């Protein structure tokens, strides 16, 4: 079973079409992984879909999404939402 971190890193690599090894915890979505605002919206949607369950729908409000700029911040955010 892959960890949340593995799943998030893989998803970011897929969404942003970046090699997985570049998606380190401290990688910055814009500066290091070449994302723009459109990519970040679609990445947020992909994260919501990946971690939503029947009982627990994950919704990342826009104001929260705009604060998430690194892989680690995304992981911290998910942990705070109880995604494990």
């Amino acid at each position, binding site marked *: 079973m892959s960890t949340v971190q593995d799943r998030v890193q893989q998803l970011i690599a897929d969404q942003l079409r970046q090699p997985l090894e570049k998606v380190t915890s401290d990688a910055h979505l814009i500066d290091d992984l070449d994302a723009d*605002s459109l990519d970040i919206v*679609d990445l947020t949607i992909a994260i919501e879909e990946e971690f939503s369950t029947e009982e627990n729908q994950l*919704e990342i409000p826009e104001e929260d999404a705009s604060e998430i700029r690194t892989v680690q911040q995304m992981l911290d955010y998910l942990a705070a939402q109880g995604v494990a």
Partner: protein
Amino acid sequence: MTERVVITGIGPVTPIGIGVETFWESLREGRSGVRRVPSLVDAGLKVQIAADIPEFEPNDFMDAKAARRMARFSQLAVAASQLAVADAGLELEDWDPERVATVVNTGGGGVTTIADQSAVLNDRGPGRVSALFVPMMAGNMASCQVSIQLGLRGPTITSLAACASSVYAFIDGRQLLLGGEAELALAGGTESNVSPLGIAGLANMHALSRRNDEPTRASRPFDRDRDGFVFGEGAVVCILETLEAARARGARIYAEVLGGGRTADAFHITAPDPQGEGAARAMRAALRNSQLEPEAIDYICAHGTGTALNDAIETRAIHDVFGEHAKRLAVSSPKSMTGHLMGAAGALSAAAAALALYHGVLPPTINHEHSDPECDLDYVPQRSRPAELRAALVNGFGFGGQNGVVALARLSE
């Protein structure tokens, strides 16, 4: 002042080949690109055949991230543009990018993207609709993505004229050069909506062949047993430049673009004028604007869709314009092989006609087995053949009654 415009590069991404060599070989050999498409079979559609390009790999032409941000019709346009530039032997760095025009037209643009994201909206809610939805589906992205990917910064235009769209691109591209708005133009069309929504609407209109069990025999323009067209996808882009520029750089010249004609039927949203009046008037306008007598035309690359109405009416219009000469010239329809690429169909026909003039070979109308009293011309049935060709017309007639015809000629001094 420039007076002459020529085609020096051809970039086809089609159901019968990617790249000009394969495309021409398939036209010459009379290969069909029609097949039973798994996604249409799975969707249980009445029409399960189409001419698609399963082997197209966007990453051969652009990086993965750029490809993800484009609908398939834009990916095809970018690929066709790159192939055209390479075929023309152009080094784009040698040109002022502000003087390069991009005219890539389309019929339906991103209809498939609209269908996909509508499903997301209905199934998963508005919060899940992609931020890329609008910039992916918009039809103008056909030209804009080419402009972005190739760094072309001159006039960038996408116009819609249904199945005549990319005939219009050659007329507009030529005008941009003659009017001094650009020194080089990419002209063509793109279409990619081989999907359940795209097919279902046309199928319910009874426009499409239902010959599901014989895909390669389904597209049969001008044949007695034709039962509709076969929907296709693809993009074809050509390089237009002035004769002077082409000669100065020693470019290979496929054909000259002499002039074009555009008319409207003002009759019906899908059916052509029963007398073919609008089509005939477009052919006459193309001849007049090209300063050609009808007898100068040796070949017509027909609209030739394979619907009962189109083929009979196009034949009637050719009789009307050419009189006795109609029986002497050759008419063929590449749609017999490629299916109907809608917004890319005119560019595909222009490319086929330019190659026919250049090589002195008439591409065939395959599946033409039985003559029809209403279709009584020389359609180059089944097999290509060598011919001395001076000039050709390329026909494109669209839903809505938009007609476009462009005249091409083998280059003469």
